[in-house]
């Protein structure tokens, strides 16, 4: 029990006492993934400086984990000596940064001007119907994420969507559906049954 995190908000079983700590949100939350921690340390050691290191560190952490958990943001704040709310401000300002785990397959439908006039919203609608998720969220199984984004710089191929780092252009709603079906099939083939499920079989 003694190595459980001890702090104000991270321990739901703890009795909540009224009043303030006057600590202005500078509490350290749950432990940070050691890999991110060591990468942050290495980056800071290589790049002496100040607050200008915030965005590179956020990139680094997101590249490592796929998203930015609160604990990582808190650690970055503490390491840079910045108020946590400033990290929160930067992370929430840039669409690139995510604070929730990302899906295995991230679909981003371009809503830039060229794609918009070539009916990109029909692509979103098609994917939404197949996967049952709204833009900005992730399917329950964590496989698919759908986002609407600003211009992806491939206006000549409009309408465009990206699947992770690959760009798919000149799509019809049918093409989009096929793409998603293909991914679902691939995911089923790759899926290794969980140990508990094997017992059931």
């Amino acid at each position, binding site marked *: *029990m*003694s*190595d*459980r995190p*001890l*702090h*104000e*908000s991270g*321990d739901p079983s*703890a*009795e*909540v*006492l*009224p*009043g*303030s*700590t*006057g*600590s*202005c*949100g*500078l*509490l*350290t939350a749950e432990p940070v993934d050691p890999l991110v921690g060591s990468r942050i340390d290495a980056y800071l050691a290589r790049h002496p400086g100040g607050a200008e290191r915030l965005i590179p560190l956020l990139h680094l952490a997101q590249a490592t984990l796929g998203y930015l958990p*609160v604990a990582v*943001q808190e650690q970055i704040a503490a390491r840079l*000596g910045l*108020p*946590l*709310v*400033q*990290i*929160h*401000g930067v992370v*929430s*300002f840039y669409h690139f940064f995510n604070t929730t785990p990302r899906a295995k397959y991230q679909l981003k439908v371009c809503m830039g001007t060229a794609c918009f006039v070539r009916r990109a919203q029909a692509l979103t609608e098609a994917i939404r119907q197949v996967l049952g998720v709204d833009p900005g969220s992730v399917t329950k199984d964590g496989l698919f994420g759908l986002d609407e984004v600003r211009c992806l710089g491939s206006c000549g191929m409009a309408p465009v969507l990206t699947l992770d780092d690959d760009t798919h252009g000149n799509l019809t709603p049918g093409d989009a559906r096929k793409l998603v079906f293909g991914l679902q099939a691939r995911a089923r083939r790759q899926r290794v049954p969980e140990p508990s499920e094997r017992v059931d079989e």
Partner: protein
Amino acid sequence: MRDADVTHETTTITVNGEPAEVLEGVMLLEVLRGLGVEVPTLCHDERLTPYGGCRLCVVARRDAQEGLVPACATPVQRGMVIETDAPEVIESRRQQLQLLTLDHRMDCPVCETRGDCRLQDLISLYGLPDEQLPFDRKSMPRDERSPMIVQDPEKCVLCGRCVRICDEVQGEAAIGIVDRGLATRVATPMDRPLDCEFCGQCVNACPVGALVARPYLSDVPVWQREVVVTTCSYCSCGCQVTVESHEGKLLRVTSNPEEQPNHGKLCAKGWLGWDLLEEPERLEGPLLRRKGRLVRVEWDEALDAVACALRDARSASRPVVGVGSSRLTCEDAYLMQRFLRSVVGSPHVDVGPIGGVSALVEGMGEINGVPHSTATLTDLAQADVALVLRGDPTRTHPLVKTELVQGIRQRGQKLILAHAISGGLERHAQLYLPLEPGTDDMFVNGVTAELLKLGPAALQSCVDVPGFSDWASSIGDYTPEVVAACTGIPAEQITQAARMLLEARKTVAVVVTGLGIPGDEARVTRAAVRLMSLLGLAEADRGVLVLGENTNVQGVLDVGLHAGLFPGHRTATDQSARQELQQLWGGEVPAGPGWSAKEAFSRCSRGEVQLLHIVGQDPMAAWPLSFQARKAIDGAAFVVVQDAFLTKTARHADVVLPVRILGDRDGTVVGADGVRRILRAVRTPPRLPQDGDLFVELARRLGTTLPQGEELQRELAQLLLWPHGRVPLRRFDVVSPPIRHPAWSGMLLDVSPQLFHSGSITRRSRRLQELAPTLVVRLCPDDARDLAVRNGDPVRVSAGERELMLRARVDATVRKGTVVVPWQGSAGDSNSMLMVDVGASLAVNVRRS
């Protein structure tokens, strides 16, 4: 604005056709307002760096660089031609207001601001364009989770004043601007419930109704409220507060940015701690002990009983002792000491063990000859290096903390923070030195010794001061290595502190005081005065600012509410002073010094005292164990207590006389900076007498009169001069050799004042108690982990046979190795249980229960 940008060269510009001579580099807005030109603003705040967010301060430039410019962020340049009321300026402001109103929920008739709204003022002044613009407002929920501050993002105009003042002035950044586009809003980190210092700066800075104080919600429009500007009665900063009331009910507390010394800044106590005026537990009439029980009686009966007891003491020639408080106004304190000295004829009048008294009397008084600080808050704001000793002003003197944060953030001031008790300022300090408890004076001596080695040129001004050579040889023992071993601070950091001070052009040492802070405050003060005088700076550029614990520590000493001091800083042994007083007061004045509170209490315990008159103090609950308050109160033949509440001490008194407190009083108080400020009753008519009135009344019953009103002010003016002047160092004393304290076994008990809760008065404020629960012991996450204690677990805090059982609260702001026990926690007496002596630090054992 950074001072560095101002060249101090004047130049001529043209404003609305008139030439004007102005300082180059100053922002146009400041210049225009200085010239009496009205310029509207929403986002501007003179306490903050220019922002240029609301674009309402636009003015037209008619010189070579023609166009509309924001006055708040445009520095004055040679040959500028400015028009402030050109048609395009007015039109631009109207359009800007229209854009602001698009994303502002116009709830004006039912808005919580009750008419206190800059946006509303500006719209009624400029009007809005006729055509409606299409707009889809994003709906955002109100945040009502905080007990004190309600946030309504739909009314927010994103001027950023709250966020900037929280960061730049308060140094907390508890809120920030998050998200983007239409979703942009002011939020707490990760949208957690607001957990901050509750200074109210954000609410007071909000130009609209996006941030409002829950305790100050009211239906009374602002123009119907009575407004009183008075002095805050908590710490010794002397902040000016604006109190609004209606029909005797207190409605709201704010502060005006134009008032000195606080420039509109407040702290949790000064902003919220006013509810105790309306606390139902306040005494409404006098109490008299009859057949062993305190019963409510008429004023005449109670006062007659006291007068009778005083006459008995006189006829039996047995001593009468008065113990006053540093919360008394100058007038009340003066009347109290005059009553005891000239009416009763007793020299035994003292102020008790209040933080700052010893630093001023035995510290400043011994070394400089007069018991007052040699620096002001203004000096501190101008200093380029500040040395803060003994404690963190964040907890004890929040205004000083904001001055330091502003100095660091806006003017590049450097802060050396050396103390054993953390409070949050350390993250802003250039050099943070967490000392071993009680070693502050050794640290200052160590820095002084280094200074002597590094900068012998500074000696010039000091070699002729009496005692210098003896002192200089005694300070030689304080080598960095020895001091490092005693204080726990590495030798190189001691040298670094000395270097930083040597490079300073203007510096102030701040001595923080408060009952429960470990270490001898007088010794630290003397060491700090010597350190400052060796810097080789002009007297005005170096000083020591003693921050007294209560409102009027300085003032009560000025008027002689001290066993060793007559009014006007004359020692009570001074025969000529005594004769002057006899002439002025017309009668015998006993020669001093009288008994200090400690001496008096020990004599009470031995049954030597006939009458003990306690004013505004609760020794049984709040004083250290060494005073043996319970024994003293029981030992005195007759005990009179003047207090607003039935305190623990009052319960054992023979007569309890209720009085007005804090903002219910009239009079003057002297801040730590030596400036005398006015205290005005916020609610009239008064329902109870003030402390001084009771002494006048008692004197009348004993057949004499005490001065009141004009006559009293004339008498004070004859004896005293405010503000205080500067004084040179009078003498050097040999310092005792450094002592290495044995290592701690256990944890350091921190019973010193807290931000939300600093003693027996704050305990009565329900709002402050909501912010700072007293029934907890706080410890840092690391210690909690080591002790296997989780939030909410019951823990035992013990020192020898004394023991407290409280719930644990894990708090990352607590220093490792320290446990914080609030004043008067469980059963209202943790202090008197665990605080051994003034300045003593106590090691305690903490374990899970």
